[in-house]
């Protein structure tokens, strides 16, 4: 119950910005930093390029959702493991 409330608050925090900035695309903060660097040091050019970049937004979102899914899977496994262990073990020490 407490966790549900906390989660609701997290969701709320993510939704509020949409009402504050109705016309924003919510681009990444690192892109803005890139612009700031150009402003401060206009003559600076990046001296190396990334080795590989996802070809487009679709592939990128695939990799991201995969990452989140895998992470959640591991968390779910560990918690589920603990829960089942607690439920089915009779001795008090695993409480």
């Amino acid at each position: 119950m407490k966790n549900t409330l906390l989660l609701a608050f997290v969701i709320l925090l993510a939704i509020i910005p949409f009402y504050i900035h109705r016309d924003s695309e919510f681009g990444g903060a690192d892109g803005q930093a890139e612009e700031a660097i150009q402003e401060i040091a206009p003559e600076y050019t990046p001296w190396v390029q990334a080795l590989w970049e996802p070809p487009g937004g679709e592939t990128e979102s695939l990799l991201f959702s995969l990452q989140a899914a895998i992470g959640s899977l591991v968390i779910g496994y560990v918690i589920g493991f603990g829960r089942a262990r607690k439920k089915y073990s009779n001795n008090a020490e695993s409480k």
Partner: protein
Amino acid sequence: MIKKIFWPLTFIFVFTCYFWLNSLHSAYAMHIMEGFLPAAWAIFWWIIMIPFLIVGLRAIKRKITENPELKTILGLSGAFVFVLSALKIPSVTGSSSHPTGVGLGSILFGPTAMSVLGTIALLFQSLLLAHGGLTSLGANAFSMAVVGPFIAYAVFKGGTKINFSFSFCVFLAALLGGIGTYISTSLQLALAFPSEVGGVLQSFYKFAAIFAITQVPLAISEGLLTVIVMNLIKKYNMNELKLLKVFIKEAR
């Protein structure tokens, strides 16, 4: 019993490692981009980072050898970083960033252990998602895997000492660790790109306005999410928490 849990544990550990190696790459909207840190600074941060990695690897090894059953919780700590750094959440500044997730592991395993996990995360994120970069990895790792975890750890210990409730300590630790990470990133950029007028400080304000302010609501979310997971661990994995000596006295 030990035999029965050994294989699932090994499986989950290997599995977790495998995916660290393969997909943990994504935390981005906040790291210094490839090539955007001048070479001298890139090398400087790399050199600073190395001792933390060595100490961290030893710390993990020691804990795992003492109590092999802690591998699952170590996997969970890594997976938490993994999930949170995939969540690009919109913020009040009109841009997006993502939480770091290092607070949980820092509280459980200590800050240097998270230096290792965080660096692995950043490494693969820079290789596979082109977020952050190999040259800027030293600097990014210092922010997310050293500054963040150490702040989180110190806040947690300090909070426990002055008898804040456990959940509040966890919340505060994760929150301040998340903000600290981005303040550190801003400082690194400011040092590398001082303004002509106003110097490092002026640049720092500029970068902090971009990174740190964006991060405030996300850090709150990070704190709340860390408390949620910690509640679950407390409920179902008390054994491991006891082994990790997270609670000083009040094992509830």
